[in-house]
């Protein structure tokens, strides 16, 4: 079966985010970018399904500027077979991203679509669910285990307070949580091979999708900074402060 994986280019998770002085957004100039960590887990899961003989082909898609092709190449180096780049320099919000992915789903007809549960930039946690709703598919969000059995997929989901397993008809959408797997690193020979794998590029207009934003960002600010507090001399003083000063125990 064919598996479609969506990946997003974001600020590397180890980079300290800085808000622009004019409060219009976050400074992305000369900042290290990388594949969203949850998307890495999505790619890894697809590759494992292929290694198990469950998946026959892995198509990776990314929406973003020209440079997002780096993240597609990374996914190809990890084991995806071909890439689709929907190129735009505009900000694409979740609903519009879901509409773009829907048009890719209609063309590619994958049995399974795997996405990260959220991107660590906008933290919306929406695109996978929206894609599932728009395509009339079932969804297994925040997955910690994915088992394909015939025309169904059983997805174990991380929920508040535990785990729940749901059975979904295929085709279906899965979004990944941290415990699903530990992504591998790409080997140098595979990175070289990835450069020769097919990568198709198109624009949102080619897909007939209007990507105008529905949400306007009025301003972006740094969070109220915490002041370093006091050093306590010993544990007794700490407990006394927590009980009598902060009143939190």
């Amino acid at each position, binding site marked *: 079966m064919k598996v479609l994986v969506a990946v997003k280019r974001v600020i590397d998770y180890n980079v300290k985010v800085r808000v622009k002085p004019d409060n219009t957004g976050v400074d992305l100039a000369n900042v290290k970018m990388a594949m969203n960590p949850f998307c890495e887990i999505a790619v890894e899961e697809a590759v494992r399904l292929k290694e198990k003989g469950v998946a026959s082909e892995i198509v990776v898609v990314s929406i973003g500027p020209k440079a997002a092709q780096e993240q597609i190449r990374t996914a190809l180096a990890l084991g995806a077979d071909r890439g689709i780049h929907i190129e735009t320099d505009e900000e694409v919000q979740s609903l519009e991203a879901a509409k773009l992915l829907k048009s890719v789903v209609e063309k590619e007809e994958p049995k399974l679509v795997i996405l990260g549960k959220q991107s660590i930039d906008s933290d919306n946690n929406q695109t996978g669910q929206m894609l599932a*709703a728009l395509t009339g*598919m079932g969804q297994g969000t925040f997955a910690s285990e994915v088992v394909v059995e015939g025309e169904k997929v059983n997805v174990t989901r991380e929920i*508040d307070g535990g785990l729940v397993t749901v059975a979904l008809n295929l085709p*279906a959408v899965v979004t990944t949580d941290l415990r699903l797997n530990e992504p591998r690193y790409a080997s140098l020979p595979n990175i070289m091979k990835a450069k020769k794998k097919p990568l198709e590029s198109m624009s949102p207009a080619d897909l007939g999708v209007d990507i105008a934003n529905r949400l306007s960002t009025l301003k972006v600010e740094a969070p109220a900074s915490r002041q*370093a507090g006091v*050093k306590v001399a010993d544990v*007794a003083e700490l407990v006394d402060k927590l009980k009598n000063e902060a009143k939190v125990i």
Partner: protein
Amino acid sequence: MSILVIAEHDNSSLKQATLNVVATAKAIGGDIDVLVAGENCGAVAEAAAKAEGVNKVLVADNAAYGHFLAENLGELVAEVGKGYSHILAAAGTTGKDFMPRVAALLDVAQVSDIMRVESEDTFVRPIYAGNAIATVKANDAIKVITVRPTAFDPVAAEGGSASVEQLDVVKDAGLSSFVNEELAKSDRPDLGSAGIVVSGGRGMQNGDNFKMLEQVADLLGAAVGASRAAVDAGFVPNDMQVGQTGKIVAPQLYIAVGISGAIQHLAGMSDSKVIVAINKDEEAPIFQVADYGLVADLFEAVPQLEEELKKVL
């Protein structure tokens, strides 16, 4: 304006997060209805009717909603919610699951995880794991919103007298079914919603030493967390990870033990009300965000903490 709040519950009791979300609805202003969708959830509807400020409780009681499957809830809430100006749910794992489906079915954007209401269409929410705070304006006619419950003080659970109306809208999308669930047997609260969190880092040296933290946590009724360094070192499983790629927590009290305070970790806990850091390295960045810092060897300090807490609790 009319606001539909989707109740969070387990079919037998109303979760407190619902009261926080009703408070968010009050901050927006307008008539507030609560939708209780579940199976044999009459007691939940009664509880919702008593919540302060609720106008009407709508009940969709059907097997299709018993396990809160997003496919079915999405269709139900989109159908019931299309007559409202705002649809609100808590940003727990249930709300995060079905609300984007509602937004997509209504062809509107969703505003996720809001922490403040500026006006009926403008909301404040964290991005980059709380390292930046965005003010966003929703331009669609229906605002679909998930709410960070800890950011709003709950309305009173008693005192209201809303009417209760049964709905006979049954939406079974037939796309998914419940197989089983495994809820944590631990008596400790869930990491994401605990009032107190005790976390360990690489300084714990191994997984066995986390037992020291568990003993302290049990005295405090706290959850136990860990830094990514402790998870990567294999001390504890990664569902305990607090940080940008783990759980984002904002408890009343966060006790960081043997945690240096990497950016990735601070992003997950710096909204905590009171932060305590115990670390032997006085230069550790965690002390820059800690309200109370103790420079000490954790293997001496944690057993002492347990003893001192026993005296005062």
